[in-house]
């Protein structure tokens, strides 16, 4: 287990990717070396000066750039808390708990890997794709969204693998949902990783389960603490109710009760 830390970070850049999403790149404020972080892990960010925001905001790690000592955080505006994060000025400070949660399984052998994301759920898949790429493992990305502007960071993804897209309005890639993409009929995969809206992940899990493909899903249950103390973010599993923050956020779909 990598020890957790409570650290102050400084915003190095804040780029608006579309009306709802911003990419924040942050570095430790006191030049401390970033702790080791794994794809699938997340951070808990304290939001200051937000009257209706009491709890920290859990945000998945979008990318780590060790040579720049930098964490990338893809933030979608959902409410007041995330709105404040998207408005952060360059040079602004963020207090974060890092790194939290378990991680995706990094396969040890070459094979055929598919990473399926929807909406802002694509965020942790970039870091995972990068890690696979570093190990010489090629992967396919299948990303879905409402329309073209919702498929984020496309050039970053294509650096690490082949990118397939679906949009609900047909403005990019195939029209429809990710599970309708023809690549799922043409190619045979050994391992699928998914993160996004629950109906999408359930559909991906069903596809994988029916074909006996190993599959891991990253959940985003509501949570208070993020480190296993409050017991609020529980997911029903074959082992009973477990904390999505410490036992997850990544689960093998066979542990979940989605397909029962």
């Amino acid at each position, binding site marked *: 287990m990598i020890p957790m830390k*409570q650290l102050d970070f400084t915003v190095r850049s804040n780029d608006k990717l579309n009306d709802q999403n911003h990419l924040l790149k942050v570095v430790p404020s006191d030049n401390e070396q970033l702790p080791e972080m794994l794809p699938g892990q997340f951070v808990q960010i304290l939001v200051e000066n937000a009257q209706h925001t*009491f709890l*920290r905001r859990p945000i998945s790690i979008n990318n780590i750039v060790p040579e720049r000592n930098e964490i990338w955080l893809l933030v979608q505006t959902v409410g007041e808390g995330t709105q404040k994060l998207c408005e952060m000025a360059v040079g602004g400070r963020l207090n974060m708990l890092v790194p939290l949660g378990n991680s995706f399984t990094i396969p040890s052998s070459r094979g055929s890997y598919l990473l399926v994301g929807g909406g802002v759920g694509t965020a942790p898949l970039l870091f995972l794709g990068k890690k696979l790429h570093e190990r010489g493992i090629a992967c396919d990305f299948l990303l879905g969204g409402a329309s073209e502007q919702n498929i984020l960071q496309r050039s970053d993804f294509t650096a690490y693998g082949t990118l397939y897209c679906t949009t609900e309005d047909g403005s990019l890639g195939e029209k429809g949902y990710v599970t309708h993409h023809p690549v799922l009929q043409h190619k045979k995969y050994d391992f699928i990783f998914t993160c996004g809206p629950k109906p999408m992940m359930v559909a991906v899990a069903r596809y994988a389960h029916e074909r006996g493909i190993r599959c891991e899903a990253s959940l985003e249950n509501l949570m*208070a*603490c993020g480190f296993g103390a*409050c017991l*609020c973010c529980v997911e029903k599993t074959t082992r*009973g109710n477990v904390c999505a923050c410490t036992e997850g956020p990544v689960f093998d779909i066979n542990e979940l009760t989605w397909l029962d």
Partner: protein
Amino acid sequence: MQLRNPVMTASGTFGYGTEYTDFMDLGRLGGIFVKGTTLEPRQGNDYPRMAETPSGMLNAVGLQNKGVDYFVEHIYPVIKDYDTRMIVNVSGSTVEDYVACTEKLVGLEKIPAIELNISCPNVKEGGMAFGTSCASAAQVTRAVRKVYPGTLIVKLSPNVTDIAEIARSVEAEGADSVSLVNTFLGMAIDAESRRPKLSTVTGGLSGPCIKPIALRMVWQVFHAVNIPVIGMGGICNWEDAIEFILAGATAIQVGTYNFIDPSASVKIVEGIEEYLLRHNIASVTDLVGAMEMG
């Protein structure tokens, strides 16, 4: 029971202490009240169990825990070496549950006290029901007092008309201390979906939003009983803690704010030390109930 300092952490917000060791030195604390423990294992309530509110949160965890036998066999051996007071919060559905659970904790050398939870709002049977009438609060306290020789703390519910009356009834049955308050019964509805935000509809409200009410109740109970009062309810910093002590709390518990700042309790210990130096006060006990009028 003597404490190193008056700052402890509240049951249900601090796990078994283990969850916080990356963030702080547990040895700086006066004590840790561990997660609510029941005779049998409990899965707790269905998700969603939590809703954020302005300056606080609602929870409906429902006493998820692995049961007292698991605690004794697997958790106690780990936490017994922590350099602070470890206190077990005991809950149940019937008087017999409370007694049987307590009996399994008697004789654990490093557990100097238990906190009888007669105030959990999130279980269908028992829990808060025991803490909302003098007769049932007295009944469960009396039954546990008979089997428990250690320090017996009773945790009171604020969901009552007169909390001082409940405090007096458990004092009369031999409670060594009362801790207050547990969470306030509340609810939240999603306006768009028109559905309750908690699977149980209602849940317990905690956080800074409850602090003024909790403080008032601590003050009332302090004037009603002769046993030490442990105060809690929305404490976030040393000033909050000093307020509770001035209102009559001998010690305090930090609860929900541990989720926001996992090292908040240590900062409160340091803040109280600085306050005492600044005001040239020898011991924090000199401040208990020392609110000055006029």
